[in-house]
């Protein structure tokens, strides 16, 4: 009995502390929402320019979906990816001040700190996702507003953000300076984006790229989104499988992050 009570207490304390950090991010967004608007520009351009042009060209086989519809989940995933992959810079910034030090000296499990950061990125990702959805609606994309599907979309966005932001945190803990981090971030985003099913189906890729795409977590995120967001959307895998892949990678990364995070100082 005593064992279970103490176990329960630890789990409660762990999740409480994780949630504090995510809540903190929400408060920051509320204090300064202007940043969200500037972030809306890039996905808007992709959908408007790239989407409209390629819808006309009909160069990419998308089944019976208009190309704009097909690429919308991909662009959502991409813009969430960009935010997450640069999220690690906040850790470097916090390290150059004394913020990380204070978190690390508090009696908070390292994994809770890292998971909290991951969920914070999830909060940002959700805000970004909402913006992309609004843009897509304005452009006449046929979105699916089934409540359960929306929940699934939100879950995929949070998981994807958590995954890539934790990856980013680990890199930040290794490179330690802003300059090196920015360079690496830029090197990473494009391959992650293009070697995925975000804006074209995997089936049209050369076979080596197909292999890479299957190793790319973004592919699984887009696969969920494409099935849930669109009216008549289809995917490659079962949604449960996609979610499982994302969750498993996230957990592994959080565990690695928990070891790396204290080394950032």
């Amino acid at each position, binding site marked *: 009995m005593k064992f279970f009570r103490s176990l329960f207490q630890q789990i409660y304390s762990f999740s409480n502390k994780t949630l*504090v950090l995510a809540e*903190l991010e929400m408060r920051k967004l509320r204090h300064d929402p202007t940043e969200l608007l500037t972030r809306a520009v890039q996905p808007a351009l992709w959908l408007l320019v790239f989407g409209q042009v390629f819808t006309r060209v009909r160069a990419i086989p998308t089944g019976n979906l208009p190309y704009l519809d097909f690429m919308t989940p991909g662009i959502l995933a991409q813009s969430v990816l960009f935010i997450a992959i640069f999220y690690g810079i906040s850790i470097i910034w916090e390290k150059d001040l*004394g913020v990380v*030090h*204070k*978190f690390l000296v*508090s009696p*908070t499990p390292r994994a809770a700190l890292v998971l909290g950061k991951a969920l914070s990125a999830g909060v940002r990702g959700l805000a970004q996702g909402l913006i992309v959805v609004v843009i897509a609606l304005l452009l006449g994309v046929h979105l699916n507003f089934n409540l359960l599907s929306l929940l699934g979309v939100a879950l995929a966005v949070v998981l994807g953000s958590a995954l890539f932001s934790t990856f980013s945190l680990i890199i930040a803990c290794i490179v330690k300076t802003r300059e090196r981090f920015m360079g690496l971030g830029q090197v990473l985003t494009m391959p992650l984006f293009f070697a995925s099913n975000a804006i074209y189906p995997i089936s049209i890729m050369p076979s080596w790229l197909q292999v890479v795409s299957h190793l790319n977590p973004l592919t699984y995120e887009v696969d969920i989104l494409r099935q849930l967001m669109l009216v008549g959307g289809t995917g490659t895998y079962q949604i449960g499988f996609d979610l499982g892949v994302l969750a498993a990678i996230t957990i592994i990364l959080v565990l690695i992050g928990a070891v790396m995070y204290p080394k950032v*100082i």
Partner: protein
Amino acid sequence: MKIIETRDLTRRFGELLAVNRLSLTIDEGEIFGLLGPNGAGKTTTIKILTTLLPPTSGQAMVAGFDVRHQAARVRKMIGYVPQLISADGTLTGYENLMIFARLYDVPRQEREERVRQALRYMGLEEVADKLVRHYSGGMIRRLEIAQSMLHHPRVLFLDEPTIGLDPAARRTVWEHIINLRQQFGTTIFLTTHLMDEADELCSRVAIMHLGQMAALGSPQELKTAVGRGEEVTLDDVFIHYTGNELDNGGNFRDISRTRRVARRLG
């Protein structure tokens, strides 16, 4: 029991011996000052004692727990204000405190009251709901000390608590430090470059030089020892032990860090 006890505490960064066989004991309720030129190893010592850095060799016990093997227990017992700015400028003062009340397991029923109390105690009630970005340097420091005290720690580590503050703000921080000790019996371990600060606050000081302890005692004892009958200040004591007239301590990294903090706070 000694509240802090180190034995041959050593930390290397590659070839550099940042802390070299430091042995110290500190009694509960002391205000202990660690002095020394830039790069002497003061911050590194604090980082080891607060579990941020593992020692390369030697031992350190804080509140009865080993900093290396019982880090989680140590963390519950201590509060820490880093040398650099550690309050979050994009949140309000109230929010900054609330986060740490939760991270330090202050029970839910008590949180609100503790946070309010801390704000009142540090004279920050009026600005509680303003973003910390708009605070003055002195207000930020007071907020940071408030954050580190929410869970009533047994030992409080303050790394250059008054760096970059004007004389009036400095005095206010001093008063709060003295109050904390009187009211809660908190042991305070601080570092400083200011000899008058050490003289005013500390029951004992250690002077560190190139990672090693060069002198240890109450300010009065050190003055007597160095002065040999003549009237000397703690400045003279400092120069005597560190030979620091020629400004030999501190590389670019140390200085640029210090300046950056001073600029942000000022």
